[in-house]
């Protein structure tokens, strides 16, 4: 059953489409990143995914200080201040226009900003970017379609990621449905947070679920992601039961459930947390899970937070050392031995 035909005009807020994605499921894939998330994971490497609205991102390294963006803004959301914090006069701004210089005292008033994109349009070097584009299912499909021969050759397909794709339930369902109708393998990367129904609604069109297990300890989870993990674990159990019942898991790894666990030094990269996760997977999810991936923390999100004007959430936390990651991976492998689960880490 592939369900009713998709009109293709449902819109979603997409913040990136990554081709030749080799980390989000089997084979060569295209990953569609949707904006908006329930969680606020401190280590998130896509912090621009969290807010469910369009966001202005500013790359100071590219800015040439021409103030064209400020001239273009009709909502008073972008302006300059002097050393004392006072707004620059029109005359001073005119000087800047004539003699561009590195931008200091730039103020972005996110409340005043209407996300109209006029500043982005005006920006000569592309230092401003409006993160999140409203796109129809059809528009996204047009960007997915060219790589179809690569999916077929490699056993790859399309992965919906985020953010949390289930926040845009209808769009996600219709996009997955469209891919399925075109014979493209589908994967959903989800936190599984919240109600069961949104997840259930996309499952008929999803070949593989990549479930992110952030931390087994409820307190740790609440502290570092902002939400309780109760619904996540409940949905994971229910999903596993469903997959087992439907016999939707097979030997190729490409169907069923993968569990992905980020390992963050000082937060959840401990033997206890890994053991707890292994115990949960073994006792509650066995028979549904084909692959467990441990994802070592890296600092790529830090630069993006800076461009979004957000404070650093994990200042000073070093990337996960490869050796430590390997140890945890091998430990997880030991704990899941005999379950028919492949353990990988990177």
């Amino acid at each position, binding site marked *: 059953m592939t369900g009713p035909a998709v009109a293709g005009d449902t819109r979603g807020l997409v913040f990136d489409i*990554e*081709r*030749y994605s080799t980390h989000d499921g089997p084979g*060569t894939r295209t990953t569609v990143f949707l904006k908006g998330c329930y969680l606020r994971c401190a280590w998130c490497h896509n912090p621009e995914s969290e807010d469910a609205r369009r966001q202005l991102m500013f790359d100071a390294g590219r800015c040439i200080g021409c103030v064209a963006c400020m001239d273009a803004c009709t909502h008073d959301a972008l302006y300059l201040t002097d050393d004392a914090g006072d707004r620059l006069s029109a005359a001073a701004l005119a000087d800047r226009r004539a003699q561009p210089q590195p931008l200091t005292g730039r103020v972005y008033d996110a409340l005043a900003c209407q996300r109209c994109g006029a500043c982005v349009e005006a920006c000569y070097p592309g230092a401003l970017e409006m993160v999140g584009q409203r796109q129809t299912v059809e528009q996204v499909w047009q960007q997915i379609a060219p*790589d179809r021969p*690569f999916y077929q050759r*490699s056993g790859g397909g399309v992965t919906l990621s985020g953010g949390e794709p289930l926040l845009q339930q209808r769009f996600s369902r219709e996009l997955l449905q469209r891919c399925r109708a075109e014979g493209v393998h589908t994967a959903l990367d989800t936190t599984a947070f919240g109600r069961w129904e949104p997840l259930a609604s996309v499952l008929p069109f999803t070949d593989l679920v990549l479930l992110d297990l952030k931390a087994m300890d409820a307190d740790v989870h609440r502290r570092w992601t902002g939400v309780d993990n109760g619904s996540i674990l409940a949905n994971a159990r229910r999903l596993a039961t469903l997959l087992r019942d439907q016999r939707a898991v097979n030997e190729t790894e490409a169907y069923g459930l993968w569990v992905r666990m980020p390992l963050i030094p000082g937060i959840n990269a401990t033997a206890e947390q890994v053991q707890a996760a292994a115990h949960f997977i073994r006792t509650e999810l066995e028979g549904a899970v084909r692959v467990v991936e441990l994802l070592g923390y890296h600092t790529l999100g830090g630069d993006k937070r800076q461009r979004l004007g957000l404070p650093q959430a994990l200042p000073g936390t070093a990337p996960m050392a490869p050796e430590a990651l390997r140890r945890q991976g091998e430990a997880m492998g030991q704990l899941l031995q005999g379950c028919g689960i492949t353990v990988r880490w990177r």
Partner: protein
Amino acid sequence: MTQTITPPQSQVPEFPNLTFDDRIAALRATKMAQTKEKQQVIGAMDYDDWPMILPPTERRRLVQSISGSGMPINDVLLTGVDMLSNHEDGCFYGPELCGANFRRLLQAHPPYVDAMSSLAGAYMTNFGSYRTSGWRPEFVVPQDLVQLRQRYQLVGAIGAGQHFCQDLGIGLRLGFGGLLAKINDYRQHNTTPEQQAFYDGLCHVIAGMQAWISAGADGAREMARIETHPQLQQNLTEVAQINERLVTEAPMTFREACQWILWYQAAARMYNGSGSLGRLDELLTPFYQREHDDGTLTDDEAIYHIACLLVRDTAYIQLGGPDAQGHDITNAVSYLVLEAAHRLKVPSNVAICVGEQTDPGLLERGVDILLQDRLGHPKFLGIEPTTEGFMRNGFAAEVARTRAYSGCHWSAIPGREYTLNDCVKISFGNVFDVALRDMMTSGQPSMARLWGHFDEHMDIAVAATARSIDFHMRHMKDVFPELVLDLLCYGPVEKGVDASDGYAGAVEDYNMCVDGCALATIADSFAAVEEHVENRHRLTWAQLLALLDNDWGGTEGERFRLLMKRTPRYGSGGSRADHWAQRISELFTRTVKAGPTPAGFNMIPGIFSWANTIPLGKALGATPNGRHAGDPISHGANPDPGFRKDGAPTAMAVAIAAVQPGYGNTAPMQMELDPSSGGDTRRQVADLIRTHFELGGTQINLNILDRAKLLEAHADPSKYPDLVVRVTGFSAYFASLSPEFRQLVVDRVLCER
């Protein structure tokens, strides 16, 4: 006896039993030392890692010259060779004297024998560098053609050499004695003075070769006499015996076949830079099979002999692929050649055929070696798209399948096809520049009119190129004929005419290469103008022209340059620039295929810029894609670095597959992959290669490069003297390249994902 050149033997191990791997390691160490010395003496070498070694210190003279591919180079002459002249300009022209002078060079050339190698021979200079003029002055290029070539900065054709493929099978069957007999036989029937002069030239080449080989045999004999290491002494004795035979006889054994090819190839390289070996696996198979079946040749020994050949030349080699009937010829020797390049670990240009009918194991092994060695080899050929494309020129499948990979981005039918491959370039950049200025001088500027002018000037540029090809073929035989390649072609010896003489139909087919360049530069330029001038009116046409003339100077210029530069580019997928790239390729293809040259020679379009990215860039003003005047043009059919944020190889593969001209000549994909991308890299790379070819792609050059290591090597090349990169169709030591060329490679890698 001439002094024999032999490398320092400090690396000879003390222990008595040298394995083949020990000897291959010693060959590699010697090559590294020789390369380092060349870097010190010659300086930057922005070309294929030619196997040339330096003449003895007392016989060197540094000169500025033009390479066999038409690029200015620094070169070293072997002194003590007096070249005769037959022209008041002091140069030598025509078959008789080119042959006689080459013979003088070969006779004066010291033989080279390395006790670690099973094969003798190496060359020390380029014969072309003794020529003081590239063209015979009385053959005057018509003035209007000179102006057109200047106006569009047309590259090549007139005076270009080699860039087609001989059939080594002829030589392996006949040997030099047999070739001489064949010439003497045909010269009885072809008796015009021109034909006799041509035969004289060929005979001089053979006499020179025989003297050179004989000197090699003598040198090996002498070295054997004083060698104390039993294995090496035995080896040197065998080298002497083999070469004494090969002076006249055809090779009988696998080792002799390798030795014969080495001599011929060294002479061809020295004469005018030819690097075409073609289907080495097919050529060596009869020798291998016989000895393998007899139990007289192990695979390890065969690999060693091939390595001894490959260390002396980075020749272009095709492995696998169809025979005339369409059956894949991949066999044990295909794997042995691949293995030899792998064990040797020096620059090489071994290419693997990939297709539905081709042994998939060869691709898998090739990818393994690519990932493991990280030396940019092997490269990969889309055998089905190129074969089917070539058939669109009117050739039967049986003919098309015999085309063999034999140069940077090109193939030719061994011994039967003259092509000027990779020697004829039309830069879309200059066509665009002329079109834009032409349009601005009359009427209201618009995209539609710009395209109309571009179309019109493409037509003129292609027509001028066609005339240049005709002009070249009318006269080249009397300038600098193809005496070495002629020996192993079907027709030149039989008819008494040089292969370049298309008017006389010296060889069976004339399929003249015409390559387009600067595709991404100009596709992105069209898109940027459309977006910011025509659609959004951010600047006027007059402003655009003024900014280009001023090379984006001043604050405002830089602003607009950045603005134009951020227009979605060719390769991003579904962009206007992608659309323009396809449209440009279609226009170029249609124009080239509109008809043959005025004299009736077929032309085949391809898209490839080779090392011309830098000189063609220097000859081009600022372009609307935000490129500064003089900066390099884009690389072949590749999108410019930074074409997508994710740098997706699939996006690049789809884009390049969509701009293929489709007549058998290639528009290669140059790709740099990060080895740390994780996952099943071997499968990902193999899938990428196969799928690109399924989509119509024709050739893939792949580098697996560690970004950090490359940056370190760029800052201090001496830190990684053994780092090999595939620069474009060719591969070279990174440390041998000029800073400009190194920068090109670095830019590509920095912008990958």
